[in-house]
């Protein structure tokens, strides 16, 4: 069975929710949202999900082709102020796509370069990242693994707390921070290396360790018994087709590359 790189990433990203139990799963962006939706429809039906607006749903809406919210499977009202009541309880796992991630797992969606008074590039602002990162689990989704994203120094604006001893608040331990997995177009990583170092968990088919390291601005540990990222199951692929009927997942990565590279990677 053939599958795209986007579908491989969605499959890997859906697995971050497998052992979460009954928590609010929030995927920001089309592929992360599709991943959370696939998880709720397959490996973890206990997950909770919103309609990206103001209701919790007993079954996720499609991520493409939705014409109206009328008739959706509402479970309860879940306006934005109530989302904070839920997320500050800790019962949430967000899958988000920051513009920068550093060696501590700190991330940035606010601004690039310049100063606080006048950034070179204004992005979104910190949004809910500070509160999310200190109150509940977070995973990251990175469509283009590069040194622009995985920066050498600290993030230009540290929007979310990570495993940085220098910034650790009084009374906290590094293990209080809960960064789960990082799904990129090259590999799956976590922060479970020595001293919460970033660590490669699996490589996507045809990707080498060197390629990941060349595109990462900091040192990476490697998990024992490094494996290849598993291919999406046929069930996952049919759920993706059902939940994304307009196939927008084919438009999220440049040129929609296949999940298994057609040509071998360049030799060293």
């Amino acid at each position, binding site marked *: 069975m053939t599958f795209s790189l986007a579908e491989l990433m969605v499959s890997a990203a859906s697995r971050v929710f497998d052992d979460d139990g009954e928590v609010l799963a929030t995927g920001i962006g089309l592929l992360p949202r599709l991943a959370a939706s696939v998880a709720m429809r397959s490996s973890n039906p206990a997950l909770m999900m919103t309609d990206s607006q103001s209701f919790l749903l007993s079954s996720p809406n499609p991520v493409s082709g939705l014409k109206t919210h009328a008739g959706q499977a509402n479970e309860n009202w879940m306006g*934005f102020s109530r989302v904070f009541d839920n997320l500050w309880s800790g019962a949430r796992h967000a899958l988000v796509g920051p513009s920068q991630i550093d060696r501590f797992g700190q991330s940035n969606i606010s601004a690039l370069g310049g100063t606080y008074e006048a950034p070179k590039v204004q992005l979104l602002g910190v949004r809910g990242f500070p509160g999310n990162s200190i*109150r509940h689990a977070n995973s990251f989704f990175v469509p283009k693994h590069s040194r622009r994203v995985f920066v050498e120094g600290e993030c230009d604006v540290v929007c979310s*707390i*990570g495993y940085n001893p220098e910034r650790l608040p*009084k009374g906290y331990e590094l293990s209080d921070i809960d960064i789960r997995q990082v799904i990129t177009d090259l590999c799956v990583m976590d922060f479970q290396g020595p001293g919460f170092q970033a660590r490669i968990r699996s490589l996507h088919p045809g990707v080498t360790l060197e390629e990941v390291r060349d595109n990462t601005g900091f040192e990476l540990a490697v998990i024992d018994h490094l494996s290849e990222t598993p291919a999406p199951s046929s069930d996952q692929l049919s759920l993706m087709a059902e939940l994304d009927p307009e196939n927008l997942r084919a438009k999220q990565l440049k040129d929609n590359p296949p999940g298994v590279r057609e040509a071998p990677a360049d030799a060293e």
Partner: protein
Amino acid sequence: MNKLASAEDALSVIEDGMTVGIGGWGPRRKPMALVRALLRSDVRDLTLVAYGGADVGLLCAAGKVKRVIFAFVSLDFMPLEPAFRQARESGAIEVTEIDEGMMLLGLRAAAWGSPFIPTPVGLGTDVIRNAPDIKVVDSPYDDKEWVAMPALPLDVALVHATRATTSGVCEIESPDHYMDDWFIRAAGHSVVSVDDIVEPAHFADPAVARRVYWERNCVNSVVHQPGGAHPSSSDPLYGFDVAHFKAYGQHIADGGYDAWADAFLGADESAYQQSVGGLDAIQSLPLPAY
């Protein structure tokens, strides 16, 4: 008490240097007719508190703003608000950048008469490093440190509701009232624009009365302005205007605020609505589906 007023009269309480909170969220249910009335006024040096969209972008671009207290300024489908981006990158405005939830806590603290609300939100991030006015304090009850999110008292709150009585009983029929109740309660003075005016009997239905999120004594002025949220949405009456937001972005990029104002602002709201296709066109805008 009849609180019905024109936008100009209702906003005459706003003086230079005041702190103004604006309800809604990004491109959704923003009191844009009130914002446009501010754009036509000579008020300046405002401090804005908002879950920002084009309201914040336009006021910054027009030179009305000294400081913005924000967690994001975004139009959702256009993630980066074009005018706010220009204002930030040119260093034209001062900012206090906080988490979305910190803003909620700051509004609640102001509403409840508390100087601050303790929270872990912001710890370990640049939100605390960049905002020296936001203190981190020890707890009398445990050994951790906590962010003391200061109250965000507002001189004036501007909110758009679906409909209201002339006495200020406001209904928000949209699926989410966002933090509008906290903007209203954090403010010394509140101005609510509405699409429709209704009789008190409208609220006899308990299901309708449940869509009232603050009491009428929180409201000082009601401005009747059908289509007044445009180009943001007033769900279920109309959606946000994607085409106009794109035109807005193009005008800001090509010629800045003046290009947009020359093309659209007009001398009053009626002229504005004519410039964007008329009230019927606004009220026909489809609701977004996510």
